[in-house]
């Protein structure tokens, strides 16, 4: 899977996990409605999960309001994906920097021993705490 796709999937999962994607869907002629969670979407279609089934629909089959909702969700996914991508870029640049390299051998306490620890992100600031037990 390409990196871009992975980022979009992660962003989608974050939105699904947040529960933003459950909505009542109405057909374009207003004759039918159902509740379902968006699993994925692209420019023209949306896949909705109803119970255990995942059903793909053309977006135009839904009421205008739902189509707008799908667009909004798509924008949210794109925004989250862009943020994730930026975070990855910053983390990669940080890992190559002198300061990043100097923090390469981090450890973290796990139960009764130290184990190797890798920073997953590069925060804007680090609070360095210099200390000794003596």
């Amino acid at each position: 899977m390409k990196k871009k796709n992975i980022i979009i999937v992660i962003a989608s999962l974050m939105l699904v996990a947040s529960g933003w994607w459950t909505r009542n869907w109405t057909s374009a002629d207003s004759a039918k409605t159902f509740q379902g969670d968006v699993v994925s979407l692209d420019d023209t279609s949306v896949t909705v999960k109803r119970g255990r089934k995942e059903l793909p629909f053309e977006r135009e089959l839904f009421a205008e309001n739902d189509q707008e909702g799908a667009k909004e969700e798509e924008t949210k996914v794109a925004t989250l994906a862009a943020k994730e991508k930026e975070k990855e870029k910053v983390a990669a640049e940080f890992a190559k920097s002198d300061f990043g390299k100097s923090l390469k051998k981090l450890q973290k306490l796990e139960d009764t021993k130290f184990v190797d620890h890798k920073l997953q992100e590069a925060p804007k600031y680090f609070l360095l705490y210099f200390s000794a037990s003596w």
Partner: protein
Amino acid sequence: MIHISLDQSSDAALKWAESFKQPWPIMLQEDTDQKKLVEPYKVRGVPAYILVDRNGKEVARGKAAALAAAKKDEA
């Protein structure tokens, strides 16, 4: 927060970390490049708190000042 341990032995650092279940990452002295991670910050006593940006540039020194600077940036 990154703990830069100045303990001579990792056993001492481990005992100390265990005593309060230290949740944050630590650089043990044996793994620390003193010239890059200790000397530039001119630490004269412990404990010492120094807030740095992701380039390692000092932003604030001292617990209160460091936390205040971090909070100010968040706002």
